[in-house]
């Protein structure tokens, strides 16, 4: 009796660890691009929606630099197909000639949770937009920064 109970406990452990292999993989496929613009004498914003649209306040859109939302691939090979999204609150971009700009108000599609398609490749695509804050007479240059998204499998 005592041996049996130990065995069943072992079986349960092995079963549990196989469930743990239901890992989540997130891959960044494209950057969040705010494009190019001319700053004004007043503060402004550039907003990229998660479906890739751009709107501005204060600044003047200018030039041919591409803009667009960031795109991520979510891969959950087994277990629950659902995932939860954690977006950063803000990040800082620094300029090639000095200066910095803050990016905040990150928004994603899906908004807070999604699910991979079990019927096909067990993947899903998540896109992320945000708002860039531009200071009056922001220093000219090419700005870059990074941000990290976290995806969990509940």
């Amino acid at each position, binding site marked *: 009796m005592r041996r049996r109970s130990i065995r069943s406990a072992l079986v349960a*452990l092995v079963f*549990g*660890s196989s469930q*743990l*292999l*239901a*890992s*989540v*993989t*997130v*891959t*960044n496929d*494209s*950057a*969040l*691009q*705010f*494009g*190019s*613009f*001319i*700053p*004004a004498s007043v503060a402004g914003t*550039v907003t990229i929606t998660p479906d890739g649209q751009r709107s501005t306040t204060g600044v003047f859109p*200018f*030039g041919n*630099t591409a803009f667009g939302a*960031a795109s*991520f691939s979510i891969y959950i090979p087994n277990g629950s197909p659902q995932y939860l999204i954690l977006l950063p609150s803000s*990040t800082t*971009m620094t*300029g090639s000639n000095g*200066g910095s*700009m803050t*990016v905040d108000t990150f928004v994603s599609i899906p908004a807070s949770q999604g699910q991979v398609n079990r019927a096909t490749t067990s993947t899903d695509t998540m896109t*992320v937009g*945000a708002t*860039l804050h*531009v200071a009056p*007479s*922001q*220093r*000219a*240059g*090419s*700005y*870059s*920064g*990074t*941000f*990290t*998204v*976290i*995806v*969990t*499998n*509940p």
Partner: protein
Amino acid sequence: MVLVAGSAMAASATANATAKVFQPIAITAGGTALSFGNIVAGAVSGTVTVTPAASATSSTTGGVTLASGGSITAANFTVTGETGATYTIALTGPTGGNVSALVAGTTYTMPLTLTASPAAGTGTGTLTGGTQPLYVGGTLTVGASQQAGSYSGTFSVSVSYN
């Protein structure tokens, strides 16, 4: 085991964020006025033209002749902005298109048309190296026996990215 489970069920990815900020376009006056020098009106009308250049030259038509002593200069400006960008130049002439002189309580006028180098128009300027000098000259129409006097007026130049 619980800790391992937690890390296996969450993942993160880092993305780049990019933006390009262009330098605003600006124009400043260089302090030199458009000056036609001293003009002698004739019995018939004529014109006097100053070229839009750093070393401006003057030419006349009709009954107009130049007298010595006056300076002949094009107005000078400096345009600054994004290196390599092209821009549009617009000239706004003096009020009513005339320069004027007030002599003994009466205002006399002469029509002035402006020319710029680079020429006014869409995308005619280029900010090679982020800057470009801009000169404004013009043509003054002097009437037959034009009233003697010191004529003046103001004009403006505006620039914008295309």
